[in-house]
Protein backbone atom coordinates (compact mmCIF):
# COMPACT_ATOMS: atom_id res chain seq x y z
CA UNK A 1 0.00 0.00 0.00
CA UNK A 2 2.89 2.36 0.60
CA UNK A 3 4.32 4.11 -2.42
CA UNK A 4 7.67 2.47 -1.71
CA UNK A 5 6.22 -0.91 -2.63
CA UNK A 6 5.97 -0.65 -6.37
CA UNK A 7 7.58 -1.10 -9.71
CA UNK A 8 10.23 0.98 -11.45
CA UNK A 9 13.08 -0.64 -9.53
CA UNK A 10 15.48 1.57 -11.44
CA UNK A 11 15.47 4.33 -8.92
CA UNK A 12 14.31 3.00 -5.59
CA UNK A 13 16.19 5.72 -3.77
CA UNK A 14 14.16 8.41 -5.50
CA UNK A 15 10.94 6.62 -4.64
CA UNK A 16 12.01 6.41 -1.03
CA UNK A 17 12.90 10.05 -0.90
CA UNK A 18 9.62 11.07 -2.47
CA UNK A 19 7.55 8.90 -0.15
CA UNK A 20 9.46 9.93 2.96
CA UNK A 21 7.09 12.77 3.96
CA UNK A 22 4.32 10.18 4.17
CA UNK A 23 6.12 8.32 6.93
CA UNK A 24 5.01 10.21 10.07
CA UNK A 25 1.34 9.99 9.07
CA UNK A 26 1.74 6.37 8.01
CA UNK A 27 3.37 5.35 11.29
CA UNK A 28 0.64 7.06 13.35
CA UNK A 29 -2.10 5.45 11.27
CA UNK A 30 -0.54 1.99 11.40
CA UNK A 31 0.02 2.03 15.17
CA UNK A 32 -3.12 3.81 16.35
CA UNK A 33 -5.72 2.95 13.73
CA UNK A 34 -4.78 -0.26 11.95
CA UNK A 35 -3.22 -1.64 15.14
CA UNK A 36 -6.42 -1.48 17.21
CA UNK A 37 -8.49 -2.89 14.34
CA UNK A 38 -6.21 -5.92 13.99
CA UNK A 39 -6.00 -6.25 17.77
CA UNK A 40 -9.80 -6.12 17.97
CA UNK A 41 -10.05 -9.12 15.63
CA UNK A 42 -7.84 -11.05 18.05
CA UNK A 43 -9.63 -9.74 21.16
CA UNK A 44 -13.03 -10.64 19.80
CA UNK A 45 -11.94 -14.27 19.59
CA UNK A 46 -10.88 -14.41 23.25
CA UNK A 47 -12.61 -14.30 26.61
CA UNK A 48 -10.50 -11.37 27.80
CA UNK A 49 -12.19 -9.67 30.73
CA UNK A 50 -11.46 -6.89 33.19
CA UNK A 51 -12.26 -9.10 36.15
CA UNK A 52 -13.25 -12.64 37.02
CA UNK A 53 -12.77 -15.45 34.54
CA UNK A 54 -10.71 -14.27 31.58
CA UNK A 55 -8.85 -11.56 33.47
CA UNK A 56 -6.10 -13.74 34.93
CA UNK A 57 -5.54 -15.81 31.83
CA UNK A 58 -6.95 -15.07 28.41
CA UNK A 59 -8.24 -18.02 26.44
CA UNK A 60 -9.02 -18.36 22.79
CA UNK A 61 -12.74 -19.02 22.46
CA UNK A 62 -13.22 -18.92 18.69
CA UNK A 63 -16.46 -17.40 17.52
CA UNK A 64 -18.19 -17.84 20.88
CA UNK A 65 -18.50 -14.07 21.42
CA UNK A 66 -20.26 -13.63 18.11
CA UNK A 67 -22.51 -16.59 18.90
CA UNK A 68 -23.32 -15.02 22.25
CA UNK A 69 -24.21 -11.74 20.53
CA UNK A 70 -26.37 -13.33 17.84
CA UNK A 71 -28.32 -15.35 20.40
CA UNK A 72 -28.82 -12.43 22.78
CA UNK A 73 -32.19 -10.65 22.58
CA UNK A 74 -30.59 -7.58 24.16
CA UNK A 75 -28.06 -7.43 21.32
CA UNK A 76 -30.80 -7.58 18.66
CA UNK A 77 -32.76 -4.97 20.60
CA UNK A 78 -29.71 -2.68 20.36
CA UNK A 79 -29.31 -3.40 16.65
CA UNK A 80 -32.96 -2.46 16.15
CA UNK A 81 -32.55 0.75 18.15
CA UNK A 82 -29.40 1.61 16.19
CA UNK A 83 -31.29 1.20 12.92
CA UNK A 84 -34.20 3.34 14.18
CA UNK A 85 -31.79 5.97 15.48
CA UNK A 86 -29.89 6.05 12.17
CA UNK A 87 -33.03 6.09 10.04
CA UNK A 88 -34.83 8.78 12.05
CA UNK A 89 -31.75 10.91 12.70
CA UNK A 90 -29.62 10.69 9.58
CA UNK A 91 -31.66 9.48 6.64
CA UNK A 92 -34.92 11.25 7.48
CA UNK A 93 -34.06 14.03 9.94
CA UNK A 94 -30.71 15.56 9.07
CA UNK A 95 -30.89 14.67 5.39
CA UNK A 96 -34.41 15.87 4.58
CA UNK A 97 -34.41 18.81 6.98
CA UNK A 98 -30.98 19.86 5.68
CA UNK A 99 -32.26 19.68 2.11
CA UNK A 100 -35.49 21.55 2.89
CA UNK A 101 -33.54 24.30 4.65
CA UNK A 102 -31.05 24.59 1.80
CA UNK A 103 -33.94 24.85 -0.70
CA UNK A 104 -35.84 27.41 1.38
CA UNK A 105 -32.69 29.47 1.77
CA UNK A 106 -32.47 29.83 -2.01
CA UNK A 107 -35.58 31.97 -2.12
CA UNK A 108 -35.86 33.43 1.39
CA UNK A 109 -34.73 36.91 2.31
CA UNK A 110 -31.05 37.26 2.96
CA UNK A 111 -31.29 38.44 6.57
CA UNK A 112 -33.54 35.54 7.54
CA UNK A 113 -31.22 33.12 5.78
CA UNK A 114 -28.16 34.44 7.60
CA UNK A 115 -29.91 34.43 10.96
CA UNK A 116 -31.32 30.92 10.55
CA UNK A 117 -28.08 29.40 9.38
CA UNK A 118 -26.20 31.07 12.24
CA UNK A 119 -28.54 29.46 14.79
CA UNK A 120 -28.42 26.05 13.14
CA UNK A 121 -24.64 26.18 12.82
CA UNK A 122 -24.38 27.19 16.49
CA UNK A 123 -26.21 23.99 17.41
CA UNK A 124 -23.65 22.06 15.38
CA UNK A 125 -20.55 23.87 16.70
CA UNK A 126 -21.45 23.34 20.37
CA UNK A 127 -19.56 20.46 21.99
CA UNK A 128 -21.40 17.15 22.24
CA UNK A 129 -21.60 17.21 26.03
CA UNK A 130 -23.16 20.68 26.03
CA UNK A 131 -25.71 19.58 23.41
CA UNK A 132 -26.51 16.57 25.59
CA UNK A 133 -27.20 18.75 28.62
CA UNK A 134 -29.22 21.25 26.58
CA UNK A 135 -31.55 18.51 25.41
CA UNK A 136 -31.65 16.92 28.80
CA UNK A 137 -32.94 20.17 30.24
CA UNK A 138 -35.21 20.83 27.26
CA UNK A 139 -37.00 17.48 27.44
CA UNK A 140 -36.86 16.97 31.22
CA UNK A 141 -40.00 16.70 33.29
CA UNK A 142 -39.73 20.35 34.37
CA UNK A 143 -38.04 21.42 31.16
CA UNK A 144 -38.87 23.96 28.48
CA UNK A 145 -40.81 21.58 26.24
CA UNK A 146 -43.37 20.92 28.95
CA UNK A 147 -43.51 24.60 29.78
CA UNK A 148 -44.33 25.21 26.14
CA UNK A 149 -46.89 22.38 25.99
CA UNK A 150 -48.62 23.53 29.17
CA UNK A 151 -48.71 27.06 27.80
CA UNK A 152 -50.53 25.74 24.75
CA UNK A 153 -52.88 23.80 27.01
CA UNK A 154 -51.41 20.40 26.06
CA UNK A 155 -50.54 17.62 28.52
CA UNK A 156 -46.96 17.23 29.75
CA UNK A 157 -44.69 14.70 28.09
CA UNK A 158 -41.67 12.92 29.44
CA UNK A 159 -39.97 11.78 26.29
CA UNK A 160 -36.75 10.86 28.12
CA UNK A 161 -38.72 8.18 29.96
CA UNK A 162 -41.52 7.27 27.57
CA UNK A 163 -39.75 7.37 24.21
CA UNK A 164 -36.04 7.88 24.89
CA UNK A 165 -34.87 6.68 21.46
CA UNK A 166 -36.98 9.41 19.86
CA UNK A 167 -35.69 11.95 22.38
CA UNK A 168 -32.06 11.23 21.53
CA UNK A 169 -32.93 11.14 17.81
CA UNK A 170 -34.43 14.64 18.01
CA UNK A 171 -31.35 15.87 19.85
CA UNK A 172 -29.11 14.38 17.20
CA UNK A 173 -31.16 15.89 14.36
CA UNK A 174 -30.83 19.27 16.07
CA UNK A 175 -27.11 18.81 16.41
CA UNK A 176 -26.32 17.40 12.98
CA UNK A 177 -28.64 19.17 10.53
CA UNK A 178 -26.14 22.00 9.94
CA UNK A 179 -23.75 19.61 8.21
CA UNK A 180 -26.31 18.42 5.63
CA UNK A 181 -27.60 21.97 5.22
CA UNK A 182 -24.10 23.25 4.39
CA UNK A 183 -23.35 20.37 2.02
CA UNK A 184 -26.66 20.88 0.19
CA UNK A 185 -26.25 24.64 -0.02
CA UNK A 186 -22.84 24.14 -1.59
CA UNK A 187 -24.33 21.56 -3.98
CA UNK A 188 -27.38 23.66 -4.91
CA UNK A 189 -25.23 26.70 -5.62
CA UNK A 190 -23.67 24.68 -8.44
CA UNK A 191 -27.03 24.02 -10.08
CA UNK A 192 -27.44 26.54 -12.85
CA UNK A 193 -30.56 28.65 -12.30
CA UNK A 194 -31.13 28.69 -16.09
CA UNK A 195 -31.96 24.98 -16.12
CA UNK A 196 -34.46 25.46 -13.34
CA UNK A 197 -35.97 28.52 -14.97
CA UNK A 198 -36.44 26.90 -18.36
CA UNK A 199 -38.18 23.97 -16.70
CA UNK A 200 -40.40 26.49 -14.94
CA UNK A 201 -41.30 28.16 -18.24
CA UNK A 202 -42.12 24.72 -19.63
CA UNK A 203 -44.74 24.56 -16.92
CA UNK A 204 -43.08 22.17 -14.48
CA UNK A 205 -44.25 22.73 -10.89
CA UNK A 206 -42.04 23.01 -7.84
CA UNK A 207 -42.09 19.32 -6.89
CA UNK A 208 -41.59 18.20 -10.45
CA UNK A 209 -38.65 20.57 -10.96
CA UNK A 210 -37.01 19.39 -7.75
CA UNK A 211 -37.30 15.67 -8.48
CA UNK A 212 -36.66 15.74 -12.24
CA UNK A 213 -34.17 18.58 -12.56
CA UNK A 214 -32.41 19.52 -9.33
CA UNK A 215 -32.12 16.16 -7.58
CA UNK A 216 -30.46 14.31 -10.48
CA UNK A 217 -27.85 17.07 -10.75
CA UNK A 218 -26.86 16.98 -7.08
CA UNK A 219 -27.31 13.19 -6.74
CA UNK A 220 -23.68 12.62 -5.92
CA UNK A 221 -23.66 15.15 -3.08
CA UNK A 222 -26.80 13.53 -1.68
CA UNK A 223 -25.28 10.07 -1.63
CA UNK A 224 -21.94 11.19 -0.19
CA UNK A 225 -23.72 13.24 2.45
CA UNK A 226 -25.95 10.28 3.33
CA UNK A 227 -22.91 8.06 3.67
CA UNK A 228 -21.07 10.52 5.91
CA UNK A 229 -24.00 11.24 8.22
CA UNK A 230 -24.97 7.57 8.44
CA UNK A 231 -21.46 6.70 9.62
CA UNK A 232 -21.44 9.63 12.03
CA UNK A 233 -24.80 8.59 13.46
CA UNK A 234 -23.75 4.97 13.88
CA UNK A 235 -20.93 6.06 16.16
CA UNK A 236 -22.83 8.57 18.33
CA UNK A 237 -22.02 7.78 21.96
CA UNK A 238 -21.59 10.87 24.13
CA UNK A 239 -24.92 12.50 23.32
CA UNK A 240 -26.97 9.42 24.22
CA UNK A 241 -24.78 8.58 27.20
CA UNK A 242 -25.30 12.03 28.69
CA UNK A 243 -29.02 12.24 27.97
CA UNK A 244 -30.19 8.78 29.01
CA UNK A 245 -27.17 6.50 29.64
CA UNK A 246 -28.95 4.13 27.23
CA UNK A 247 -31.90 3.80 29.56
CA UNK A 248 -34.38 3.53 30.98
CA UNK A 249 -33.98 -0.22 30.94
CA UNK A 250 -32.05 -0.22 27.67
CA UNK A 251 -34.78 1.66 25.79
CA UNK A 252 -32.23 3.93 24.11
CA UNK A 253 -29.25 1.59 24.17
CA UNK A 254 -27.82 1.73 20.67
CA UNK A 255 -24.90 -0.53 19.72
CA UNK A 256 -22.11 1.80 20.90
CA UNK A 257 -23.74 1.98 24.35
CA UNK A 258 -24.40 -1.76 24.42
CA UNK A 259 -20.77 -2.34 23.52
CA UNK A 260 -19.59 0.05 26.23
CA UNK A 261 -21.81 -1.57 28.85
CA UNK A 262 -20.62 -5.10 28.03
CA UNK A 263 -16.96 -4.08 28.02
CA UNK A 264 -16.87 -1.83 31.07
CA UNK A 265 -19.91 -2.30 33.30
CA UNK A 266 -19.68 -6.08 32.91
CA UNK A 267 -15.95 -6.20 32.17
CA UNK A 268 -16.33 -8.43 29.10
CA UNK A 269 -13.66 -6.91 26.84
CA UNK A 270 -13.71 -9.81 24.38
CA UNK A 271 -17.48 -9.71 23.98
CA UNK A 272 -17.56 -5.91 23.77
CA UNK A 273 -14.93 -6.00 21.04
CA UNK A 274 -16.94 -8.55 19.06
CA UNK A 275 -19.90 -6.13 19.20
CA UNK A 276 -17.56 -3.30 18.13
CA UNK A 277 -16.50 -5.33 15.09
CA UNK A 278 -20.15 -5.93 14.19
CA UNK A 279 -20.67 -2.16 14.43
CA UNK A 280 -17.70 -1.60 12.10
CA UNK A 281 -19.17 -4.17 9.72
CA UNK A 282 -22.55 -2.40 9.69
CA UNK A 283 -20.73 0.86 8.86
CA UNK A 284 -18.82 -0.91 6.10
CA UNK A 285 -21.99 -2.40 4.60
CA UNK A 286 -23.71 1.00 4.71
CA UNK A 287 -20.79 2.63 2.86
CA UNK A 288 -20.79 -0.16 0.26
CA UNK A 289 -24.51 0.30 -0.38
CA UNK A 290 -24.11 4.05 -0.90
CA UNK A 291 -21.06 3.52 -3.12
CA UNK A 292 -23.03 1.02 -5.23
CA UNK A 293 -25.82 3.57 -5.62
CA UNK A 294 -23.39 6.08 -7.10
CA UNK A 295 -23.82 6.09 -10.87
CA UNK A 296 -20.93 4.56 -12.77
CA UNK A 297 -19.67 7.73 -14.42
CA UNK A 298 -19.31 9.36 -11.01
CA UNK A 299 -17.05 6.71 -9.60
CA UNK A 300 -13.84 7.84 -11.26
Amino acid at each position, binding site marked *: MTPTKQRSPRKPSRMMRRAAPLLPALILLLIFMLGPIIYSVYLSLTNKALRGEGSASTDFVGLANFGQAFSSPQFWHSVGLTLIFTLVTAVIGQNILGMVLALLMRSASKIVTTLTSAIIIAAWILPEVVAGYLWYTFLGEKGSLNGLLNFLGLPSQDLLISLPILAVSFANIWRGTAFSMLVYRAALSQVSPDVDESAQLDGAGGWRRFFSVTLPIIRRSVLTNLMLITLQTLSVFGLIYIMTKGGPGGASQTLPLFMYEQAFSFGQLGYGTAV*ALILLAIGGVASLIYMKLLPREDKS
Partner: protein
Amino acid sequence: MSAAVSSTQVSGAQPRTTGLRTRFNSTKLVTSLLLLVVALVFCIPLLWVVFASINPEATLAVEWPKQPSLENFSAIMNTKTTFRPILNSLLLCGGATLLTVVCSALAAYPLSRYQSRAKRPFLLVIIFATGLPITAVMIPVYAMFVQVNLIDSMPGAILFLAASSLPYAIFLMKNFMDGVPKEIEESAWTEGASTMQALRFVVLPLTRPGTAVVTIFTFVGMWGNFFVPFMLLLSPDNLPASVSLYTFSSQYGQVAYGQLAAFSLVYSAPVVLLYLVMGRRLGVGFTAAGGLKG
Protein backbone atom coordinates in the same frame (compact mmCIF):
# COMPACT_ATOMS: atom_id res chain seq x y z
CA MET B 1 -21.95 31.35 5.50
CA SER B 2 -24.45 32.72 3.03
CA ALA B 3 -22.28 32.86 -0.06
CA ALA B 4 -24.08 29.96 -1.69
CA VAL B 5 -27.47 31.57 -2.03
CA SER B 6 -26.68 34.98 -3.42
CA SER B 7 -26.13 33.99 -7.06
CA THR B 8 -29.42 32.14 -7.40
CA GLN B 9 -31.31 34.97 -5.79
CA VAL B 10 -30.04 37.51 -8.27
CA SER B 11 -31.33 35.59 -11.27
CA GLY B 12 -34.63 34.91 -9.56
CA ALA B 13 -35.07 38.60 -8.92
CA GLN B 14 -35.38 39.37 -12.60
CA PRO B 15 -38.59 37.64 -13.56
CA ARG B 16 -39.91 37.98 -17.07
CA THR B 17 -43.50 38.79 -16.25
CA THR B 18 -45.30 40.54 -13.44
CA GLY B 19 -47.09 37.29 -12.62
CA LEU B 20 -43.78 35.68 -11.90
CA ARG B 21 -42.68 38.63 -9.83
CA THR B 22 -45.62 38.55 -7.45
CA ARG B 23 -45.21 34.81 -7.17
CA PHE B 24 -41.56 35.35 -6.38
CA ASN B 25 -42.34 37.90 -3.68
CA SER B 26 -44.91 35.72 -2.00
CA THR B 27 -42.48 32.80 -2.28
CA LYS B 28 -39.88 34.91 -0.56
CA LEU B 29 -42.30 35.77 2.23
CA VAL B 30 -43.44 32.19 2.76
CA THR B 31 -39.95 30.68 2.70
CA SER B 32 -38.65 33.39 5.05
CA LEU B 33 -41.47 32.70 7.50
CA LEU B 34 -40.85 28.94 7.35
CA LEU B 35 -37.17 29.50 8.02
CA LEU B 36 -37.97 31.75 10.97
CA VAL B 37 -40.14 29.01 12.48
CA VAL B 38 -37.30 26.49 12.14
CA ALA B 39 -34.86 29.02 13.61
CA LEU B 40 -37.15 29.56 16.57
CA VAL B 41 -37.47 25.83 17.25
CA PHE B 42 -33.71 25.41 16.99
CA CYS B 43 -33.21 28.37 19.28
CA ILE B 44 -35.17 27.22 22.34
CA PRO B 45 -32.62 24.71 23.69
CA LEU B 46 -29.91 27.33 23.10
CA LEU B 47 -31.82 29.96 25.07
CA TRP B 48 -31.73 27.81 28.16
CA VAL B 49 -27.96 27.83 28.43
CA VAL B 50 -27.81 31.62 28.03
CA PHE B 51 -30.58 32.43 30.50
CA ALA B 52 -29.58 29.82 33.07
CA SER B 53 -25.97 30.99 33.10
CA ILE B 54 -26.99 34.41 34.44
CA ASN B 55 -29.65 33.02 36.76
CA PRO B 56 -28.43 32.12 40.26
CA GLU B 57 -31.62 30.11 40.78
CA ALA B 58 -31.65 28.35 37.44
CA THR B 59 -33.87 25.32 36.89
CA LEU B 60 -34.42 23.08 33.88
CA ALA B 61 -36.90 25.44 32.23
CA VAL B 62 -36.11 28.39 30.00
CA GLU B 63 -36.97 31.47 32.03
CA TRP B 64 -35.68 34.98 32.23
CA PRO B 65 -33.87 35.29 35.59
CA LYS B 66 -35.61 37.40 38.24
CA GLN B 67 -32.29 38.84 39.28
CA PRO B 68 -29.73 38.38 36.53
CA SER B 69 -26.20 38.22 37.87
CA LEU B 70 -22.78 36.90 37.00
CA GLU B 71 -22.72 34.90 40.23
CA ASN B 72 -22.55 31.57 38.37
CA PHE B 73 -19.54 32.69 36.39
CA SER B 74 -17.63 33.90 39.41
CA ALA B 75 -18.50 30.66 41.21
CA ILE B 76 -16.86 28.52 38.54
CA MET B 77 -13.80 30.70 37.99
CA ASN B 78 -11.37 28.58 39.93
CA THR B 79 -8.60 26.15 39.08
CA LYS B 80 -10.46 22.98 39.89
CA THR B 81 -13.70 23.69 38.02
CA THR B 82 -12.61 25.71 35.03
CA PHE B 83 -8.98 26.65 34.57
CA ARG B 84 -7.40 23.21 34.78
CA PRO B 85 -9.94 21.42 32.54
CA ILE B 86 -9.70 24.20 29.94
CA LEU B 87 -5.90 24.10 30.13
CA ASN B 88 -6.01 20.31 29.72
CA SER B 89 -8.29 20.72 26.72
CA LEU B 90 -5.88 23.23 25.18
CA LEU B 91 -2.95 20.90 25.78
CA LEU B 92 -4.76 17.82 24.47
CA CYS B 93 -6.43 19.40 21.45
CA GLY B 94 -3.63 21.84 20.69
CA GLY B 95 -0.99 19.10 20.78
CA ALA B 96 -3.04 16.69 18.72
CA THR B 97 -4.01 19.40 16.20
CA LEU B 98 -0.38 20.41 15.74
CA LEU B 99 0.61 16.79 15.16
CA THR B 100 -2.29 16.22 12.75
CA VAL B 101 -1.63 19.33 10.70
CA VAL B 102 2.13 18.72 10.40
CA CYS B 103 1.71 15.04 9.52
CA SER B 104 -1.13 15.67 7.08
CA ALA B 105 0.74 18.49 5.29
CA LEU B 106 3.78 16.25 4.89
CA ALA B 107 1.67 13.32 3.71
CA ALA B 108 -0.46 15.36 1.34
CA TYR B 109 2.56 16.68 -0.55
CA PRO B 110 3.74 13.46 -2.23
CA LEU B 111 0.09 12.44 -2.71
CA SER B 112 -0.61 15.67 -4.53
CA ARG B 113 2.63 15.90 -6.53
CA TYR B 114 3.76 12.45 -7.63
CA GLN B 115 2.06 9.79 -9.70
CA SER B 116 2.40 6.24 -8.51
CA ARG B 117 0.53 2.99 -8.72
CA ALA B 118 0.06 2.85 -4.97
CA LYS B 119 -1.49 6.31 -4.80
CA ARG B 120 -5.06 5.45 -5.72
CA PRO B 121 -5.43 2.48 -3.35
CA PHE B 122 -3.82 4.52 -0.60
CA LEU B 123 -6.24 7.40 -1.17
CA LEU B 124 -9.19 5.01 -1.19
CA VAL B 125 -8.07 3.57 2.14
CA ILE B 126 -7.75 7.12 3.50
CA ILE B 127 -11.26 8.01 2.32
CA PHE B 128 -12.64 4.81 3.81
CA ALA B 129 -10.85 5.48 7.10
CA THR B 130 -12.43 8.95 7.13
CA GLY B 131 -15.78 7.34 7.76
CA LEU B 132 -14.59 4.72 10.23
CA PRO B 133 -16.74 4.92 13.37
CA ILE B 134 -14.05 5.78 15.93
CA THR B 135 -16.45 4.69 18.67
CA ALA B 136 -16.04 1.10 17.51
CA VAL B 137 -12.26 1.05 17.96
CA MET B 138 -12.27 2.56 21.44
CA ILE B 139 -12.44 -0.76 23.30
CA PRO B 140 -9.44 -2.33 21.50
CA VAL B 141 -7.61 0.99 21.87
CA TYR B 142 -8.34 0.91 25.59
CA ALA B 143 -7.15 -2.68 25.86
CA MET B 144 -4.04 -1.86 23.83
CA PHE B 145 -3.26 1.20 25.96
CA VAL B 146 -3.60 -0.90 29.13
CA GLN B 147 -1.03 -3.36 27.74
CA VAL B 148 1.57 -0.68 27.00
CA ASN B 149 0.75 1.42 30.06
CA LEU B 150 -0.53 4.44 28.15
CA ILE B 151 -3.84 4.77 30.01
CA ASP B 152 -4.20 8.16 31.70
CA SER B 153 -1.22 9.46 29.76
CA MET B 154 -1.68 12.80 28.04
CA PRO B 155 0.86 12.01 25.27
CA GLY B 156 -0.93 8.71 24.62
CA ALA B 157 -4.29 10.44 24.24
CA ILE B 158 -2.71 13.11 22.02
CA LEU B 159 -1.20 10.49 19.71
CA PHE B 160 -4.49 8.62 19.37
CA LEU B 161 -6.56 11.77 18.78
CA ALA B 162 -4.06 12.89 16.13
CA ALA B 163 -4.16 9.51 14.37
CA SER B 164 -7.94 9.39 14.39
CA SER B 165 -8.28 12.77 12.70
CA LEU B 166 -5.47 12.20 10.20
CA PRO B 167 -7.50 10.56 7.39
CA TYR B 168 -9.85 13.51 6.97
CA ALA B 169 -7.02 16.02 7.40
CA ILE B 170 -4.89 14.29 4.72
CA PHE B 171 -7.86 14.17 2.37
CA LEU B 172 -8.66 17.88 2.79
CA MET B 173 -5.02 18.95 2.68
CA LYS B 174 -4.39 17.04 -0.55
CA ASN B 175 -7.36 18.76 -2.18
CA PHE B 176 -5.98 22.14 -1.21
CA MET B 177 -2.48 21.29 -2.46
CA ASP B 178 -3.87 20.10 -5.78
CA GLY B 179 -4.96 23.70 -6.26
CA VAL B 180 -1.37 25.00 -6.19
CA PRO B 181 0.07 24.90 -9.73
CA LYS B 182 3.14 22.71 -10.16
CA GLU B 183 5.00 25.26 -12.29
CA ILE B 184 5.68 27.45 -9.27
CA GLU B 185 7.71 24.89 -7.41
CA GLU B 186 9.36 23.61 -10.58
CA SER B 187 11.09 26.94 -10.85
CA ALA B 188 12.18 26.55 -7.23
CA TRP B 189 13.64 23.15 -8.11
CA THR B 190 15.61 24.54 -11.02
CA GLU B 191 17.13 26.96 -8.60
CA GLY B 192 18.32 24.00 -6.57
CA ALA B 193 15.72 23.76 -3.82
CA SER B 194 15.20 20.32 -2.30
CA THR B 195 11.78 18.68 -2.05
CA MET B 196 11.37 19.69 1.55
CA GLN B 197 12.48 23.23 0.84
CA ALA B 198 9.96 23.47 -1.99
CA LEU B 199 7.23 22.29 0.36
CA ARG B 200 8.33 24.55 3.18
CA PHE B 201 8.94 27.78 1.25
CA VAL B 202 6.77 27.49 -1.85
CA VAL B 203 3.81 25.18 -1.44
CA LEU B 204 2.90 25.69 2.22
CA PRO B 205 2.71 29.49 2.07
CA LEU B 206 0.38 29.16 -0.93
CA THR B 207 -1.76 26.59 0.90
CA ARG B 208 -2.11 28.77 3.98
CA PRO B 209 -5.88 29.28 3.77
CA GLY B 210 -6.32 25.54 3.31
CA THR B 211 -4.04 24.79 6.23
CA ALA B 212 -6.09 27.17 8.37
CA VAL B 213 -9.28 25.32 7.45
CA VAL B 214 -7.72 21.95 8.26
CA THR B 215 -6.37 23.29 11.56
CA ILE B 216 -9.71 24.69 12.70
CA PHE B 217 -11.71 21.67 11.58
CA THR B 218 -9.36 19.37 13.44
CA PHE B 219 -9.30 21.52 16.56
CA VAL B 220 -13.06 22.05 16.75
CA GLY B 221 -13.67 18.32 16.27
CA MET B 222 -11.28 17.43 19.07
CA TRP B 223 -12.48 20.15 21.44
CA GLY B 224 -15.95 18.68 21.49
CA ASN B 225 -14.81 15.05 21.59
CA PHE B 226 -16.07 13.26 24.68
CA PHE B 227 -15.58 9.53 24.21
CA VAL B 228 -11.82 9.45 23.51
CA PRO B 229 -10.65 11.36 26.62
CA PHE B 230 -13.45 9.72 28.65
CA MET B 231 -11.91 6.32 27.85
CA LEU B 232 -8.20 7.10 27.81
CA LEU B 233 -7.81 9.62 30.65
CA LEU B 234 -8.73 8.86 34.24
CA SER B 235 -7.28 11.18 36.86
CA PRO B 236 -9.12 14.46 37.53
CA ASP B 237 -5.87 16.35 36.93
CA ASN B 238 -5.80 15.16 33.32
CA LEU B 239 -9.44 15.52 32.33
CA PRO B 240 -10.28 17.99 29.57
CA ALA B 241 -13.36 20.23 29.75
CA SER B 242 -15.59 17.81 27.77
CA VAL B 243 -15.21 15.11 30.43
CA SER B 244 -15.09 17.43 33.44
CA LEU B 245 -18.39 18.95 32.31
CA TYR B 246 -19.84 15.46 32.44
CA THR B 247 -18.54 14.89 35.96
CA PHE B 248 -19.74 18.37 36.92
CA SER B 249 -23.16 17.25 38.09
CA SER B 250 -21.90 14.50 40.38
CA GLN B 251 -19.24 16.74 41.92
CA TYR B 252 -21.56 18.62 44.24
CA GLY B 253 -24.29 16.07 44.75
CA GLN B 254 -27.09 18.34 43.67
CA VAL B 255 -26.77 19.80 40.20
CA ALA B 256 -26.09 23.51 40.16
CA TYR B 257 -27.76 24.18 36.83
CA GLY B 258 -26.71 27.81 36.65
CA GLN B 259 -23.05 26.88 37.08
CA LEU B 260 -23.41 24.03 34.65
CA ALA B 261 -24.75 26.49 32.07
CA ALA B 262 -22.03 29.03 32.81
CA PHE B 263 -19.31 26.40 32.41
CA SER B 264 -20.94 25.14 29.20
CA LEU B 265 -20.69 28.66 27.78
CA VAL B 266 -17.08 29.14 28.83
CA TYR B 267 -16.19 25.76 27.37
CA SER B 268 -18.03 26.41 24.09
CA ALA B 269 -16.68 29.93 23.62
CA PRO B 270 -13.33 29.07 21.96
CA VAL B 271 -14.82 26.99 19.14
CA VAL B 272 -17.64 29.43 18.50
CA LEU B 273 -15.10 32.28 18.33
CA LEU B 274 -12.85 30.30 15.98
CA TYR B 275 -15.81 29.67 13.73
CA LEU B 276 -16.82 33.32 13.69
CA VAL B 277 -13.27 34.40 12.89
CA MET B 278 -12.98 31.91 10.04
CA GLY B 279 -16.49 32.56 8.81
CA ARG B 280 -17.24 31.54 5.28
CA ARG B 281 -13.79 30.22 4.53
CA LEU B 282 -14.80 27.03 6.32
CA GLY B 283 -17.41 26.47 3.63
CA VAL B 284 -14.63 25.01 1.50
CA GLY B 285 -14.66 21.95 3.71
CA PHE B 286 -18.26 21.27 2.76
CA THR B 287 -17.75 21.73 -0.92
CA ALA B 288 -14.99 19.15 -0.54
CA ALA B 289 -17.31 16.84 1.39
CA GLY B 290 -19.95 17.17 -1.29
CA GLY B 291 -17.46 16.43 -4.02
CA LEU B 292 -15.94 13.48 -2.24
CA LYS B 293 -15.17 10.75 -4.74
CA GLY B 294 -15.65 7.12 -3.87
